Structure formats: structure tokens, C-alpha cells
């Protein structure tokens, strides 16, 4: 999960996974993805029990809103 100067730079990265073409995300979308409600409460005393469990559903809802509701982004199955 890295930042690059541009998509072209990412594709030139020595460790670029050719199967990750759908892995690009704009910086504004990325900031939104990591700004869901639970993220605003990371410093609260009950974050672990009250807020962190909400994170997964928030992330899925956000990915659906930005058109990334794919297995790649939503969670890939374990290798068989």
C-alpha cells in the first residue's frame, strides 16, 4: 500500500504486481477511505471495543460508493 508520483511510476516499480492494475486509487479517494467515522475516534478510550469493530463495514460501504466493490479491494479469499 504505497504512494507513487504517478501511475506510470508505480508500473515501473521493480516489485509492481502486473495483476494489480485495479489497485490504483486517487489521493482524494484514498483519504476518504481512511477517513471513515471510526477513524475519527482512534484516540478515544473505548476505540478498540466500540469503534474498531465498525471499521470493516465502513470500509466496504466506502468502496461501494467509489466503485471499488471488487474482490481485490473488498477482500480476496484465502489461497486454497
Amino acid at each position, binding site marked *: *500500500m*504505497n*504512494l*507513487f*508520483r*504517478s*501511475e506510470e*511510476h*508505480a508500473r*515501473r*516499480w521493480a*516489485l*509492481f*504486481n502486473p495483476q*494489480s492494475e485495479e*489497485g*490504483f*486509487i*486517487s*489521493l*482524494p*479517494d*484514498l*483519504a476518504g*477511505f*481512511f*477517513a471513515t467515522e471510526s*477513524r*475519527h475516534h*482512534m*484516540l*478515544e*478510550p*473505548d*476505540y*478498540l*471495543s466500540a469503534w*474498531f469493530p465498525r471499521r470493516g463495514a465502513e470500509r466496504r460501504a466506502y468502496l461501494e460508493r467509489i466503485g471499488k466493490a471488487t*474482490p*481485490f*479491494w*473488498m*477482500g*480476496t*479469499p*484465502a*489461497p486454497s
Partner: protein
Amino acid sequence: MADPRLMDRAFHLLMRSIVQSGNALHYAELGRALGVTVEDGRQLLHAVLEAYPIGWLHPETDYIASFPPLNNLPTQHRVTVGGQQKWFAQCGFEATSVTWLFPGMMIKVEAPCLDCGDPMVIEMRDGQFVTVNPPGIVGHLNYGFGPSRGRPPFL
């Protein structure tokens, strides 16, 4: 499973410590802060990271490597707050959420591009971008999320 209230307190202490100093408490310090034994502090640390699996210990140790959005182990994502560079973000994605740990403050993230090594800089305050240089910075997920994404330390 440890007492959920104790786990909340432990998580809070760990997060506060890495936010305040750039380093998360060691389990012995965590145990002392919570009034439990050193060994109970160690077990509590493991329990917290089981409940918060987006963070992890350095393999084969009881040392916190990653406590996102920040990292105990240096990464290429250097974070400066209030003119002090003493934090690292877990990854480029988590770098954009460090802003929520420092309300009202300007957060600067500097990282070299993994392709060319040239610098990238983003500055944020309360979730809003103030600076993005170069303007074309993008995020990239090299492996899909989920169990098959690969080994966490090599995100």
C-alpha cells in the same frame, strides 16, 4: 480472552504513547502503567494485537513493529508534526489517516517514490489536503486485501 476494559485501556495507552513520542510502550511499561505484572503486560499486548490485527509484532519477538496508522519500525513514510519528525506511517494508505491522531495540527508526510526515489510530500490538516507535491500522487495496492494479500510486514 483478556478483560475487554483492560484491553481498551491497553490499546489507549499504546496509541497515546506512539502519538506522543513516536514509539509505543514496551509490554513491561504497559504492564506497569496498568498495574499488572510484566508477564500479564506481555500477554495483554498479544491480546490487543489479536483484536487489532492491522497492527503486528516483529516476527519471533514481543516488539511492536506496527501500530497503525503509525509504525514503530521506520518506513519510507516520514511524518512531521509541529516541526518534529519523529513518526512513521505504516504505509502510504495509512499515512492519509495520521491526520486524525493530531486534531487541528498540520501533518507532513514525506516519502521517496519507490520507482525513482524522488520525494513526495503531502500535508494535511483535519483530513484536508493542504499540499500535494507532485500533484499527481496516487495510491497503489499491489495485492488485494484479505488473507491472500501476502505477508503484512511487506505491505
